[in-house]
């Protein structure tokens, strides 16, 4: 159950989504990926994709215009 952080601060769409997809593919089932973003459309398209894939997703607002997206790989 490892935890990985993906720094996507300063990255505009669709870069956070593409990076998250690439990173999650390398993770094992049960691992947690935390995507750090500051682009509001990323908190829409990243969770949308991850939920569609069946992973557990949670969004945390950590500051003004900054979020962490928690994705737990389920399969």
């Amino acid at each position, binding site marked *: 159950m490892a935890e990985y952080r993906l720094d996507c601060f*300063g990255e505009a769409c669709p*870069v956070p989504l593409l990076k998250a997809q690439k990173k999650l593919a390398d993770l094992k089932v049960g691992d947690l990926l935390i995507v750090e973003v500051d*682009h*509001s*459309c990323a908190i829409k398209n990243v969770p949308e994709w991850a939920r569609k894939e069946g992973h557990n997703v949670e969004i945390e607002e950590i500051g*003004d*215009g900054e979020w962490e997206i928690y994705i737990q790989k389920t399969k």
Partner: protein
Amino acid sequence: MKLEENKYFKTVVKDAWPYTVGAILLALFNITLLIVRGSPWGISGVLLYWGAKIYKALGGPLQNWAFYSNPANLKGVETPFFSHAGSLMILGIIIGAFFASLAASQFKIRKIKTYRQVIAAVLGGLLMGYATRVALGCNIGGFFSAVASFSLHGWVFGVFVMVGAWIGSKLLVKFFM
């Protein structure tokens, strides 16, 4: 109760609006605009005039320019900023977006992370600027307003935007990821 916990504040100010709400509002505002102003929404044509105004202010000779020898094209440059409906609309978009993100406490000045982002932004801007002139519009004037006006060129524009977006995303993954 704190304002952030109020469900109406959360739905209206904090969270992103659903696409359908956005679509309906855009349609209503565009209809209103067409009635009041006589022409639908456009962005890139106005930016063209902003560019020409700056060029002129810096002493650039517009009169030698074939495009601006057409009085219709020159009119947009010579209309004062605050009398130009298109310019005021873009100003409104920027101010509106600013206050929307401020109200949701999501305003942030993002740092430039790498030089690649600068290169990508400059290249992207040049490509978009050039393309909007040869296509006579951006995704607003060339697609949104065109489709809403039942013009076929909007649909043609839409198909090729998808082709361009597909090529663009391949280039993005190849060079900037």
